């Protein structure tokens, strides 16, 4: 085998050099998204003090953290994939034991004075662990069902724990995320078809094991007007808010649904409805475009990476972000059942922002170390 001599850029040691390699355009997109959050939270609070200022300060801190993680050598991150996976599963077990209940489910845990949902961290850990697994796999080995079985179990373990919290929405998102990473790694498409069929058979079974509030969510979703003041209220008011926005919106700080508190949780899960009300279809569609730029920017970083781990990690993290955005928007529009998923970097709330920016830090590390190859040194 003839190996072409090749100029291999050594993993850059100097911080300044690494900073140079940071995708600053991507950072700009994230800053733009956080600014949208500032404007929307300003309106949600009626003044900047309530939500908007805290949001932007938190973003600044998270941005520094993201850049710091971006400087970390990708190989180190790969080595930490398994420990992080184990740590996250441990937290999920812990949250079932000592986590405190919020809105009918055990999801939250206090870590260093900061409340967080371990399931958020779990998704990033899962991406890293799966990427780590498939990084080592040859094209042929991926065709071997026995090789594919462990990653399926790696997905099912956290999904099962999250279901037990119970948090149906996050469990489904986690499963889809794992599936996306496996798809990207080259697992045969017919195997996915098999899983889909299996899921289709399992769904009615699963429904019978759902909690009452989860079933209520599904029935309400199917017919929101059936319970206009109960569970359906959120969806109806959110649709009214979006619909009354029209093409150009009612203007910043002018949305009646939001400002008269008809819109529930307008500063967190339903902030997209408020944006749609105040800035209309034009504003909401522009926000969707910005979100897609960030998602596709992640895919682009994945394509530019020269190692499989980086590719899978970048794709997984951008897919994770995509899931947040798409589930939140669909939920606000009443297209899928309400599921407590925030709009990343726009919704008020520290825990989600930190985990999302933690993910973007890893994504940035993939970009900074994009030219590391298997043969790098």
């Amino acid at each position: 085998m003839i190996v072409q001599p090749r100029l291999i850029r050594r993993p850059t040691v100097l911080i300044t050099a690494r900073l140079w390699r940071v995708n600053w355009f991507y950072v700009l997109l994230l800053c733009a998204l956080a600014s949208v959050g500032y404007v929307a939270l300003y309106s949600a609070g009626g003044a900047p003090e309530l939500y908007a200022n805290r949001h932007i300060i938190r973003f600044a801190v998270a941005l520094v953290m993201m850049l710091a993680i971006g400087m970390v050598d990708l190989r180190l991150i790969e080595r930490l994939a398994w420990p992080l996976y184990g740590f996250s599963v441990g937290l999920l077990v812990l949250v079932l034991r000592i986590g405190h209940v919020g809105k009918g489910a055990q999801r939250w845990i206090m870590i260093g004075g900061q409340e967080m949902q371990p399931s958020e961290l779990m998704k990033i850990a899962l991406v890293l662990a799966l990427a780590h697994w498939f990084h080592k796999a040859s094209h042929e080995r991926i065709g071997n069902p026995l090789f594919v079985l462990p990653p399926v179990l790696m997905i099912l373990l956290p999904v099962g724990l999250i279901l037990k919290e119970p948090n149906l929405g996050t469990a489904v998102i986690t499963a889809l995320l794992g599936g996306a990473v496996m798809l990207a790694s080259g697992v045969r498409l017919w195997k996915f078809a098999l899983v889909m069929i299996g899921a289709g058979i399992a769904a009615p079974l699963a429904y019978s094991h759902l909690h009452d509030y989860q079933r209520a969510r599904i029935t309400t979703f199917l017919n929101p007007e059936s319970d206009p003041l109960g569970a359906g209220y959120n969806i109806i008011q959110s649709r009214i808010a979006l619909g009354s926005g029209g093409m150009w919106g009612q203007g910043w700080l002018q949305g009646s649904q939001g400002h008269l508190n008809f819109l529930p949780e307008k500063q967190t899960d339903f902030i997209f409805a408020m944006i749609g009300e105040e800035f209309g279809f034009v504003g909401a569609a522009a926000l969707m475009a910005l979100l897609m730029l960030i998602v596709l920017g992640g895919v682009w970083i994945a394509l530019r990476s020269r190692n499989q781990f980086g590719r899978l990690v970048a794709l997984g993290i951008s897919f994770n972000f995509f899931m947040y955005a798409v589930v939140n928007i669909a939920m606000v529009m009443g297209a899928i059942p309400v599921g407590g998923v925030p709009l990343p970097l726009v919704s008020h709330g520290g825990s989600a922002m930190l985990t999302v920016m933690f993910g973007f830090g890893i994504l940035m590390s993939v970009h900074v170390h994009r030219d590391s190859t298997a043969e790098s040194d």
Partner: protein
Amino acid sequence: MKPRRGSFATPGRDQEARRATGFRRRALLIGAAQIGAMGYLASRLYRLQITEGGRYATMAESNRVSGRLLAPPRGRIIDRAGVVLAGNRLNWRALLIPEETPDIAAALDAFAQLVPLPDHERARVEREMHKHRRFIPLMLREFLSWEEMARIEVNAPDLPGIVVDLGTTREYPFGPKFAHMVGYVAPPNEADVAADPLLSLPGMRVGRAGIEFSQEASLHGSAGSVQLEVNAVGRVIREISRTEGQRGADVALTIDAELQQNVLDVLGDESASAVVLDARNGEVLALTTTPSFDPSLFNSGVSGAQWKEWTSNRAAPLINKATSGLYPPGSTFKMAVALAALEARTLTVNDHINCPGYLDLGDTRFHCWSKNGHGMLNLRGGLKNSCDVFFYEVARRTGIDKIAAMSHRLGLGVPLDIELPGVRGGLIPTREWRMARGHAWNIGDTIVTGIGQGYIQVSPLQLATYVARLSTGRIIQPHLVRAVDGRMRAGADAADWPVLDIPERDLRAVREGMWAVVNEQGGTAPIARLANPVVQLAGKTGSSQVRRVSREQREHGFKSENLPWEFRPHALFVCFAPYDQPRYSVAVVVEHGNAGAAAAAPLGRDIMQAALRLDPAARAGQKLALGDPRAAVPTGGAR
């Protein structure tokens, strides 16, 4: 193969290239799916915001804006001079706003020290508190006095969340004096509210009797509305727009409040009824019934004990005797019999009939009130002496159907079109009426009807109408409403009424008889003569039996005043004055008053004297004093 170094040790470069290609395909697939998913959401968003946007905008608006009705103040009822008979009084109410009260029990204790708050009221407040949102005010006490209101205001710092608010309530300044005519209002029932949602507003009342009932449409007014911006829990953020309602129209009656009170003074404690009409146009100047009731009791709700007292009272205070009380007219009916006979030519003005004290018909003997008889009498003498035999004979000659037809033309035994509910028509019996009940008409029935006894029943209002018609020769209709909202109703002018189709000669003969009753030596009611010789009164007494007097009673020196009250005859008197130019007609009925001449005639005289002295009809030309409509009461707002 190169030794694996670093953690990115993987299969060879060839492998790596194949993986990169495979990844690129899958990544583009995923990217495309992501674009597709987001695009699908964008298309749904487009449908939601643009295609269906209008519908949702409307829903957002109806979320935001809450319309509330504003109660219009009820129109007043005033007399012909503008005296308020039914008005609106300011009603100070103490309200508690729970969310502004940190310690509700303490606030209620403090309140109870200033204004009495019974335990059951307190229990009601505590009950309601849990039914409503915390910013909705609860009524603590209504009808606060000025002192109580002031006490609460002064102690406001100790009463957090307790506010004083101004509403209105119906007020009847004369209490029972106009109760039967003016009527009363009561809180609306469910059927009322279903018909008119405005009535669901606190403090709204509907007319249940009298003018309050019959003129409801005018008095009611139309609702105003206010558009409020409310938030999700219904708290009012601001007022967007306000349309003031139309206050209810003032209804001016034909009544003269002063005359009414004079008449009531004359009637005193009797169970009686008196009606004063302007004989020329049918305006009801006084419409009295004793005893009466306090109409304001219905406003807040009548207690069981009070209701029992009213319904068990044999003098029936709740019945408007003037329009719904029915009595045999007795001798006051004789003018109608005479006019029927004159028209039928069964009697002429100069015909004489002998009265031996009785009339025998077959084996039945009909007695005259005078045991020894009146001898030969013409019409004038028959009326003057109220000779029964004379009218037995006249009735026999004329026949019941002609008498009934004449009575109806004069306003007797027919429902009169007056603006009051529950007006009764009474009865003039006819052959047909008797046949309908399965009996043949008996000539004896005609004979007793000739003196206003038997089946015949009329109301005091009909008697006053009858006298007004025969005294002025016009078919006036008694009416109570003179003007609504300052606009005069037709009927105030004598020319508004058609002329009675009876020759003036006949009417004059009857009037002369009535004049003789009072003003000629030997008449039955000289007691009714007026003190002022210039103005003369013409009248007719009547005593109507409640029970038949048997032969034994008659032979044993029967005296009706020895009977129990409820079996004594009713005493009646009808009159008009001045004789030469009739202006007023009066009818008085004293229930079980025994004899018309003794019990009713003096009352009729005093009432006529009051009418002539006050002369309300002379004020008919005056412009109505309606008062300033704005002066009444502020609109009961949305609070």
